[in-house]
């Protein structure tokens, strides 16, 4: 097969996109604790399906067949079972130590990266943008990396302040980057850090402001979804990067404007590297040169070529206009149809209801995503095998799983109820997520709660903003707010 036919194939999601590979990072999910007691994050149910199935679906809609799942060792068995249960070409599962950061975990699978480009995503992210749109932008601009941000995420969820520069100020006749769509990523900081009242604020390198005179600072949520040139990733991960967000991305951003120091440094001007105790200046400079070439995605040639890598940010946009501006994929037609068109890929359905995409990295985010996806479930929201007693209400944004029994005069509003749950009489569920096998006794009121598998909530309890861990039993007549039962 020639190079040319490969490129043609890459346009068609039905065919194997051989230039691409995907890595799903399925960490232990510490920040979701205690939801992850006994269940790995990747297998936590969102609207009745394991979280990882959404990532796999998104990747599949890009036509990527070569998928690696890098997961934490401690949940290896459960994930292995899950992967075995998948039909078709199964992703490859690589288990790594629990405490490894995203960068370190990725380093473990570097030798398995065979393709030119690699999509790296966290398992807890559910984008509303078509992978084809992102890949198109990535290829069009010959980028070294593209990071997805949920630009229109609710303000509270925005965890980053990112700096955007216009891609091509002259051609686009713009001096300020647009706040949605694709732009050059020139700065990224944690929002909490730069808005800390007594802190120093957000540092801006003057080098950067010379290279990119206008930088638009916007708040956004990091989607933890990246497309890398494999070469770039390989050279940037080096041997110390622990986290992609905190180390690899900043280093890449910086490489866009820091003049390459590799020109011909005279020995002695380079101060000793802190980490590398006995390093050799020449070798070091040479390595730096190689590295900057690799970042830019160039093969090191005569060394005179000085090129700066292109790092892109794609800010997803909310609202119905989001999908109409997206190119390729099937989202175009979907903008007009209703959200109930469940045959379409999930991201297109999300875009159609104006959702910018979200992460399930916190219990709040997890509950929020459950509700959003329940909205999209359409007629399947109440399982056929569910047993609803008369005078029970199941609201339109709710789901009830297989073999779940709901007692009389109970109401389920904006809630997702898993399979094999037993819900008593006169129970009120608002904004809740109930996982599989949960027992709720009579006259319980739950609001904005997450109840983990096999937990039990006793009679006449009233819980608000609380989490009940797996297999816990909440004694009867408990009243609690913001409580954690574990």
């Amino acid at each position, binding site marked *: 097969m020639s190079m040319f036919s490969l490129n043609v194939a890459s346009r068609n999601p039905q065919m194997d996109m051989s230039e691409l590979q995907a890595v799903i990072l399925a960490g232990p999910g510490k920040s979701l604790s205690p939801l992850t007691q006994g269940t790995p994050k990747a297998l936590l149910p969102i609207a009745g399906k394991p979280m990882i199935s959404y990532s796999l679906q998104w990747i599949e809609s890009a036509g990527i067949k070569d998928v690696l799942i890098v997961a934490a060792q401690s949940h290896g068995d459960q994930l292995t079972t899950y992967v075995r249960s998948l039909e078709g070409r199964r992703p490859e599962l690589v288990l790594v130590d629990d405490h490894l950061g995203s960068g370190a975990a990725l380093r473990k699978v570097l030798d398995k990266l065979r393709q030119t480009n690699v999509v790296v995503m966290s398992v807890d992210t559910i984008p509303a943008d078509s992978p084809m749109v992102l890949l198109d932008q990535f290829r069009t601009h010959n980028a070294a990396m593209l990071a997805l941000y949920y630009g229109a995420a609710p303000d509270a969820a925005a965890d980053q302040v990112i700096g955007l520069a216009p891609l091509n100020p002259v051609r686009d006749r713009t001096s300020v980057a647009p706040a949605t769509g694709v732009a050059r990523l020139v700065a990224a900081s944690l929002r909490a850090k730069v808005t800390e009242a007594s802190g120093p604020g957000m540092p801006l390198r003057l080098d950067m*402001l010379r290279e990119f005179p206008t930088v638009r600072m916007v708040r956004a949520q990091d989607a933890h979804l990246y497309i890398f040139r494999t070469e770039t990733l390989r050279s940037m991960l080096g041997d110390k990067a622990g986290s992609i967000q905190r180390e690899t991305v900043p280093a890449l951003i910086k490489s866009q404007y*820091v003049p390459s120091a590799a020109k011909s440094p005279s020995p002695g001007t380079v101060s000793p590297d802190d980490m590398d105790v006995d390093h050799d200046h020449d070798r070091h400079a040479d390595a730096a040169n190689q590295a900057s070439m690799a970042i830019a995605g160039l093969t090191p040639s005569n060394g005179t070529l000085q090129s700066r890598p292109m790092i892109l940010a794609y800010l997803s946009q909310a609202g119905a206009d989001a999908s109409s501006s997206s190119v390729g994929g099937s989202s175009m037609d979907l903008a007009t149809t209703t959200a109930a068109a469940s045959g379409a890929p999930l991201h297109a359905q999300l875009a159609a209801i104006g959702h910018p995409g979200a992460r399930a990295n916190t219990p709040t985010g997890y509950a929020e995503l459950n509700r959003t996806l329940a909205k999209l479930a359409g007629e399947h929201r109440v399982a056929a095998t569910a047993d609803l007693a008369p005078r029970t209400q199941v609201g339109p944004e709710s789901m009830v799983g297989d073999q779940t029994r709901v007692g009389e005069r109970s109401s389920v509003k904006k809630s997702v109820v898993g399979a094999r749950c037993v819900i008593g009489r006169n129970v009120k569920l608002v904004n809740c997520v109930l996982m599989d096998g949960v027992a709720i006794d009579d006259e319980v009121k739950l609001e904005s709660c997450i109840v983990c598998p096999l937990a039990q909530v006793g009679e006449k309890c009233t819980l608000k903003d609380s989490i009940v861990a797996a297999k816990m039993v909440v004694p009867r007549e408990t009243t609690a707010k913001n409580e954690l039962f574990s």
Partner: protein
Amino acid sequence: MAPNNSNKLEAEEILQAVVVADSFDEKFMPLTRDLPRCLLPLCNVPLIEYTLEFLAVADVKEVFIVCCAHSDLIKEYILSSKWNDDTSSMKVNIIVSRSSMSMGDVLRELDSKSLLKHDFILVNGDVVSNLRLDGVLATHRARRAADKSTVMTMVLKEGAVFHGARGAPALFCINPTTSRCVQYIPIDDPAGPARQHDVALLPEVLAEHSDVAVRNDLIDCGVDICSVEVLALFSENFDYQDLRRDFVKGILESDLFVKSIYAHVVADAYAVRVRSTQLYDRVARDVLCRWTFPLVPDADALASLVIGGAAASSSAAHAAPVLYSRNNVYREKPVLLSRTTVLSKNVLVGRHGSIGAGTVLENCVVGRGCTIGKNVRLSNAYLWDGGHGWGRVYGRSRDCGQECGAERTGVVVPRGSMIGQGGGRGGMGWCCPERTRLMVDEDDESDATVVGPDGRGCKWVAEDEDDSDDEDTMSPELTMLIEEIGFSPSDLRAYLDRKALEHDLVDNDAVSESDESDDDAVEDAAEEVRATIQRALDQGHTLDNAMLELNTLKFACNLTFKDVRDEVVPCILAHVFIANDGNFKALLTRWMPVLATMLHGAKDQVDVLETVAAWFAAHLDKAKYLGTVAMVMYDLDLVEEEQFVAWFAKAEKSVETGMPAVCRAVRPFIQWLEEADDDDEDDEEESEEEDSDDE
């Protein structure tokens, strides 16, 4: 003349403007020794005329010209100009304020006179612009109606980072949706001695605004729409001097004032302040190339003007139209040109100019009554009224001066030179160095080494600048470069790239290391760390407090653990072994745990051992205690036993001074370690990776 369509203005609200006819700097010296900057001729028309014309077009009815230096000349000029005519659309008042040393003084003076009743336009007397202000005024009024706290709208022009017209570079942080300016960040110097590499967006700004555009491409046009409140604010804050660096920055960053300042960014109009000689050159060329249309030499508004006020009669002016021909060549009749004279492009020759045979002019402005001899080559040269250039003068580039004259044969005036009034009659074959500034001082003494044996004039030397509002804190090298009239942006770019490269070479591994600090800052920070630990040691702080302080400092100064360790370890050792005698072990056990949070992984542990060893190598009399220190570090689980062994293996081979002695001192300990090899080692909590990512 100014248009007379005064349709929008109500009778009671007369649009007022303030022209500050002083630049409070010395950039044009020695040219401004005898003439204020606003009266310097730009394309044979005094600069202030451009400014006044700009205001007249904006329908301004009353102008206050505030003059400080040379106020009598300005007064004289204005009184004899068309603005003082009955037909003038503007009432021009002159306020003399000799004591004012800055923009702040001027505005305070205006406040005390309470002449201004409404929102007014504040401009510098050296603004050249064809911008239509009515749109800006309308939006300003609308904003003011909506938001009473609006005090000012700055007019900024889009340019480029290295645009010469930017003046003192600064970042404007603007909310793109509301155009509100949320932070103003002056940049001291592009690459001065202080070597500023970072600026910071204030946390409050980021907390309050979800969308901020940081712009490094805006040219400050020196045009502002101000409310009367601005004057009061200046009076309240009597230390404010500069409009931008003090006022705008102060208002935006202070919690006391709830005032908003807006920015109006123009993309298409021409607007610039003639801040420097370099810009003078640039703007003059722009005028010749008609970028400033309708402010061009052949336009009625400017062509009828006369230089020097009463010197020439106004009747003569009307009879002298400027002819505009191909390649932007302007001739103000009558002009005497030889048949072999070449006016190649962008040339303006003033009235009664006479140019000899074989002379070639390019990008030149020749003042009125100038005589240029034969075979003269002038490019990028500005000769003011009455200047002479006699035979074979090669004005390589950019000299300007009044009645100047490189008069004799074979004179070369290289780029960047300025010759003051009456100065620089260079002798035969005279050639001055680049960027010479000549003047004739009071005693008319001539410096023969500069102007040649029979020349006249001497070199102008800048006085020491110790003013408080001194904005030139740049490195001398760069100041030279920027102030030079024949300077091009690419020069600066190359200069900065070189500087940045030097910086990054020092800054080690700039690409992969996310550490952003530069070495000066690190040195300061190191000093700070030393002071902190010393304070803790001397005053016996608790361990937690000391650790907290160090940790805070580490983040505040963006230090690495190694930076902190390198300072802390010697301080502790000095404290234990030099400041005290006896009970070393207890003191060590008390203080060494400070390092606990600073050691991550094997490399760090080896590194800290090296730091310790280096200290002992420098204090060999104490070397016998190294074993104790090592023991304490081992007991406190600071360093694992393999790292001791690894370090020792390397240290043994070292030939640095003191190292053999150090090794001897620690050998027993290492041997003990190796013998007790079967110890458990699982209690070490450190691992190679210290990540806790939530992936």
